[in-house]
C-alpha cells in the first residue's frame, strides 16, 4: 500500500534510535558485568563471573535488593488500595463529573517528580508541616523523627507518585466492562456488592495486574525518593548502583546488579502479561 521508500523512511530512524541508545548501552553493560577492576583502579577486560559471585555472597547487596522489593511491594499494595476504589468510583458512580475527576487524577503527573518528593520533605521533616501541626495540637511534645529519612517516607512518597499509574490501567479495564453485564447481574438477583465480587472485580483483573506491575517495577528501580527521603535505613538497590557507577568506581559490579534487576523485572512483566491474557475476555 505504501511505497518502499516511505516505509524505510518511517521505520529506520526509530530502529537506529533504539539500537544506538538502548541496545548498544545494554550490550556494553552486559560486557562490563563480566569484567573487573584492577588494584590500580582501571577496568580489566578479562572475562569472569566474580561480580555475580560477589552479588550473591555479600549480604549488603541482596539484603538491599530484598528491602527494595519489600518497599516496592508495599508501594504496590497501597497504590492499589487507593487506585482501585478511585477508578471504581470514577467509572461507575461519578456520572457527569467523570471527566473532571479524571483530569484531577492526571494533573499531579504534570508536576515534576522532584517537586513532589521535596514537598514530602517539607511535610515530613522535624520542622516540617506535619510535626509542627502535631506539636501545635499537643498530640506530641517533640518532633517525630521516624517520619522523614525512613522506609516509611519512601513508601509514602512512592505511593503518592505511582498511584495514578495504578489508577489508569484499572480505570481503563473498568471502562471496558459492558454495562449490560452489570445490569444482567442485578437482573439475576445479585445485589451491588455481589455484582462487584462476581462480575466487576474478575473482569478488571487485567487492569489490576497491569497497574500492580507498573507500581512494582517503577518503584523497585527508584533512586530519587530513597536518596532524598530514605536516609540510611531507606537505601534502595538503585542507590547502590548509582554509587558504584560514581564515587565507588566499580562499573563492572554496578553493571552486574543492573542486569540482575533487569532480568528480575523482565521475568515479572512476562508473568504478569501471561496472567493478564488468561484473565482477558475481550
Amino acid at each position, binding site marked *: 500500500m505504501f511505497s518502499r521508500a516511505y516505509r524505510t523512511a518511517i521505520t529506520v530512524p526509530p530502529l537506529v534510535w533504539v539500537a544506538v541508545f538502548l541496545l548498544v548501552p545494554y550490550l556494553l553493560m552486559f560486557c562490563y558485568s563480566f569484567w573487573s577492576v584492577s588494584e590500580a583502579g582501571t577496568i580489566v577486560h578479562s572475562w569472569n563471573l566474580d561480580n555475580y559471585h560477589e552479588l550473591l555472597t555479600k549480604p549488603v547487596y541482596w539484603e538491599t535488593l530484598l528491602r527494595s522489593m519489600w518497599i516496592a511491594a508495599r508501594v504496590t499494595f497501597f497504590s492499589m488500595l487507593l487506585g482501585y476504589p478511585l477508578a471504581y468510583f470514577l467509572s461507575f458512580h461519578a456520572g457527569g463529573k467523570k471527566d473532571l475527576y479524571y483530569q484531577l487524577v492526571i494533573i499531579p503527573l504534570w508536576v515534576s517528580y522532584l517537586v513532589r518528593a521535596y514537598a514530602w520533605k517539607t511535610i515530613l521533616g522535624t520542622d516540617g508541616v506535619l510535626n509542627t501541626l502535631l506539636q501545635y495540637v499537643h498530640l506530641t511534645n517533640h518532633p517525630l523523627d521516624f517520619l522523614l529519612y525512613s522506609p516509611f517516607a519512601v513508601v509514602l512518597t512512592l505511593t503518592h507518585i505511582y498511584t495514578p499509574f495504578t489508577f489508569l490501567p484499572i480505570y481503563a479495564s473498568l471502562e471496558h466492562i*459492558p454495562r*449490560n453485564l452489570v445490569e*444482567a*447481574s*442485578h*437482573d439475576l*438477583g445479585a*445485589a451491588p456488592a455481589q455484582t462487584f465480587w462476581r462480575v466487576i472485580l474478575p473482569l478488571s483483573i487485567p487492569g489490576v495486574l497491569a497497574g500492580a506491575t507498573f507500581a512494582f517495577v517503577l518503584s523497585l528501580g527508584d533512586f530519587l525518593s530513597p536518596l532524598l527521603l530514605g536516609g540510611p535505613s531507606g537505601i534502595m538497590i538503585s542507590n547502590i548502583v548509582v554509587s558504584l557507577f560514581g564515587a565507588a568506581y566499580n562499573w563492572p559490579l554496578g553493571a552486574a546488579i543492573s542486569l540482575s534487576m533487569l532480568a528480575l523485572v523482565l521475568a515479572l512483566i512476562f508473568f504478569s502479561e501471561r496472567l493478564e491474557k488468561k*484473565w482477558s475476555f475481550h
Partner: protein
Amino acid sequence: MATTSEPAVASSSQPNVASLLSIRSVAKHFGKNIVLRDISLEIAEGEFLTILGESGSGKTTLLRILAGFEQSTSGEVWMSGERLDTEPPYRRRVNTVFQSYALFPHMTVEQNVGYGLAIAKRPPAEIDTRVAEALAKVKMSAYAKSKPSKISGGQQQRIALARALVNRPRLLLLDEPLSALDANLRRQLQVELKALQREVGITFIFVTHDQEEAMVMSDRIALLRSGELEQVASPREIYNRPATSYTAQFIGHTNLLQADIRHGTATCGALQWPTSLPDGAALFSLRPECIRPAITASATTASPARDATVRFRAQLRDQAFHGATDLLRVESDGGLILTIRTASRDLPEGPLEFEFSAADAIPVRATSFEEKA
C-alpha cells in the same frame, strides 16, 4: 432502598384477578425529552405480549422500567397486587434476555446459567439439576463447559434464554433477542421461542421492531408510537381491524383511502362503497389482498349494501413478482393508485376489472405524523 410502607391497595386500584402485571399511567422523561407518556397496560398471567414499535418509540425504555434499570418519571407498576417499580432490579421476580445477550465472559455456559441460582444460595445439587434441565430445554447441553466467546450468536441467544428461565421468573422480558441473528435462524427461533413459552407457561413481554415477528409470536401486540400506545390487540385484530392509519401502515401493507361520505356512500376517486358512517370526510384502510380481479365482467356498481362488492376498472402500472403472490400497482379511472396482492399469474393487456367487498374497507382514525410537542 425502596420503602415497603405502601398503603393498603384501594379496591378501586386493585388489578383484576387474571392480570399479572399492571402498568398504570407510566411516563418517562429524560430531561426535556419525553420518551413515554401515560402508558397503561394490563398483562395477563401466561400471556405472550409483544411491544412493537419503531426505534425511538420508547419500547426499550418501557422494558427497562419493568426490569428496574430505569425509574419512571410518574406512574406505577404492580405485579400480582404488589408494587414493583419501587423495588431494585435484584429483588424483582422478573428476568431479562438482553439484546446483546450480556453473557458473563469469564464464566462457562454452565456457570452463566447457574448464576441466578447461586446468588439465591440454592443447594449445589439443585443448581446442577436445574442448570442441566435448562440447558437441555434449549438444546445446549453439549456446550455446558464452553466459554461464551466460543459459541455462535444463536447459541449465545439460547444460553441467555436458559439463564433467565432457570430462575422460574414470574415475568420474562425479551429485548429484541433475535435482532442480531440472520433471517433463517431468526424464523426458526421464533417458532422455538413461542413453543417454549407455551411449555413453561411464563408471561413473556417481547420487544421488537419487526411487525412480522410480532404477528407470528404474540397473543397480543401493543403498538407503541412516539411514547404512546397506538393500539393493543391480538395480531389478527390489529391486522384486520387497525384502529388508526399508522397501525394500518405499520402492520403489513395497506391502501389508505381518503373518502368523502354522503348519505351512506363513501366516495374516493372513481370508487364508491356503502358505509354506515355519518356524512363527512373519513379515512379507510383497504388491504392489498382484499382487492381481487373481478370474476364476472360487469361494470355496473351494485346497489349500496353492507356486503356489497365494489367493482372498478384500472390500468396496470407495475407488477412485482413475490413468489406465491404478485404485488400490482394499478391506476383506477379517477387517477387513484392502488396496491393489489393477487396470486401470481400473467395478466392480459389493457384495462382490467377489479373488485373488493365494501366490508373490507376499514374506517381508521387518521394519525397525525407531526412531531408532538
